[in-house]
């Protein structure tokens, strides 16, 4: 027994991490769908899901059950093997990529010295799922959706690649952990040095994940539902899972490269150290909201379960925040060599990383609620005639700036802003030429 434990020991911790990441991402996806419905509803002055649980909080579970129990339909002329395989490819690609994301300095599955390249490679496998699914359905609209998706992804991958190169020029490494450490060392998030690259990455990320305003592959007014028109039930939910996981993935990449990954805002300013208590504040606020809603609900029998659930959530949030504030000296052994609040310090990285990711995800949803959809030729023209030239100009000017600052001893930020100004000039000229 001990021998077995000894041999398994090196695999145990990574395995637990894999499990945590897998379950965590699945949970976030479920509640991301809920958040999307809620936010879209509030943007349109509606309420959104309200019935299942308090404020519809249990809606994702109901949705999941519905999808699992639905009939699994396969079109008569479909290519069976490929039809079954395609959504699995998408899901596997989306989830495998998370193994390279550094959620915190003490929580990542693996760090490879070509991490970013691998991420791009694995996430580009996901598109195979879309193409094959669209083709195997043997139906018009899925095929058109798949074709659009391919053209769109191939076009925007170029701009995305150049935007990544701009950030890599500053980091000087491809390892995801080392990229964040480079930002820590230089004391600045790369978004402030490379705003243009960040913007291009953001737009390209929206296009890569087929989100509005670039959601032409599944434009419901033209293509029913695009590449997954013929999918139903469980297989459809796989595509759904893959799409939302891909959203989280591109947000994580952007956060790691440009927004300082797990770093707290102003990580070097000691005067702002009270920001370390933000997780506790967030939890207490959530608990306060739960209690308030609990008292606002009608005190009748039908609402009893809802009120109990809210009460439980509030107490749970308070309990967790109390756990986070557990001082080190109450631990067995007096907490020698531990920081003042060990639990709080331990979740610091993950908290800030996920907060930034959620900021991104909110942006995704916000755009869906506000922007009209592009036409396909507009999309292509934007990609090829604007994004790619600007991205290339940005790489050229910023590498020039880096070389200049090294040779002449100029300050790096100022020189980079000069390069950014030159890029913006090019962008303005491009816009003018088109008009």
């Amino acid at each position, binding site marked *: 027994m001990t021998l077995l434990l000894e041999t398994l020991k090196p695999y145990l911790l990574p395995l637990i991490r894999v499990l945590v990441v897998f379950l965590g991402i699945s949970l976030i996806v479920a509640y991301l769908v809920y958040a999307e419905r809620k936010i879209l509803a509030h943007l349109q002055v509606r309420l959104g899901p309200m019935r299942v649980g308090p404020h519809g909080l249990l809606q994702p579970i109901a949705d999941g059950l519905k999808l699992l129990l639905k009939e699994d339909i396969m079109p008569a002329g479909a290519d069976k093997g490929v039809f079954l395989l395609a959504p699995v490819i998408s899901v596997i690609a989306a989830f495998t990529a998370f193994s390279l994301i550094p959620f915190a300095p003490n929580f990542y599955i693996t760090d490879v010295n070509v991490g970013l390249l691998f991420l791009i*490679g694995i996430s*580009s496998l996901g598109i195979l799922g879309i193409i094959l699914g669209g*083709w195997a359905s043997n139906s018009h609209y899925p095929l058109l959706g798949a074709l659009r998706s*391919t053209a769109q992804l*191939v076009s925007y991958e170029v701009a995305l690649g150049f935007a990544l190169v701009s950030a890599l020029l500053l980091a000087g490494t491809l390892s995801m952990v080392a990229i964040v450490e480079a930002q820590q060392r230089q004391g600045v998030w790369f978004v402030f040095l490379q705003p243009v690259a960040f913007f291009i990455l953001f737009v390209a990320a929206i296009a890569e994940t087929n989100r509005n305003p670039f959601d032409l592959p599944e434009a419901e007014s033209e293509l029913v539902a695009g590449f997954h028109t013929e999918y139903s039930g469980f297989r459809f939910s796989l595509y759904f899972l893959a799409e939302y996981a891909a959203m989280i993935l591109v947000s994580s990449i952007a956060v790691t490269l440009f927004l300082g990954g797990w770093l707290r805002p102003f990580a070097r300013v000691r005067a702002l150290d009270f920001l370390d208590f933000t997780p506790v504040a967030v939890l207490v606020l959530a608990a306060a909201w739960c209690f308030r809603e609990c008292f606002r609900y009608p005190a009748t029998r039908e609402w009893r379960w809802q009120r109990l659930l809210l009460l439980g959530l509030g107490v749970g949030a308070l309990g967790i925040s109390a756990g986070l504030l557990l001082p080190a000296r109450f631990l067995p052994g007096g907490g020698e060599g531990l920081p003042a609040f060990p639990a709080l310090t331990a979740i610091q990285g993950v908290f800030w990383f996920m907060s930034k990711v959620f900021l991104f995800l909110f942006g995704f949803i916000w755009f869906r609620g506000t922007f009209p959809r592009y036409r396909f030729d507009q999309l292509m023209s934007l990609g090829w005639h604007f994004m790619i030239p600007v991205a290339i100009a940005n790489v050229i000017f910023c590498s020039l700036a880096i070389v200049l600052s090294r040779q002449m001893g100029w300050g790096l930020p100022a020189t980079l802003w000069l390069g950014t100004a030159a890029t913006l000039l090019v962008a303005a000229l491009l816009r003018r030429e088109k008009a």
Partner: protein
Amino acid sequence: MMFAQGSFYVLAAVAVVSALLVITRRNPVHSAIYLIVTLLSVALLYLQLQAEFIAAVQIILYIGGIMVLFLFVIMLVKLDVALRQPPFNQQWWVAGAAALVLAVELVGVIYLGRGTAALPQAPPGSLQPNTELIGRTLYQNYMLPFEIASLLLLVAMVGAVLMARRKAS
């Protein structure tokens, strides 16, 4: 060591078998899928040789780029016609004979030279900065050949666009 060898043989077998399936399937989309499997297992072989950079680039370029475009084009082909056509033409036995000769030659050369050209052992252990090494080699030691190659590719690309345009107009 056992694990490394075992995984090498598994990957190699997958690569060879799926390569065979690429040329024997009638449905071009199935061929493309098997080609993807082949390329993936070759990428994993690179990974086993601790060439992470090449493995990543293999996946990005061949699978994420070229195979996606392949599938894009295949989807536009009328499949009913392709399914009825025989996958091999009259010259298959010539090609087979040539491949056999080449295989015999390769095996012979490797067998004869096994004493003189001993393969170096891969250094055991950790990650090496192989991106940096490749970058240095390409952009410092072999700058001129690299630039010539990229110029050649550029010319080929411009030529391809030109030919496509002429046909359309």
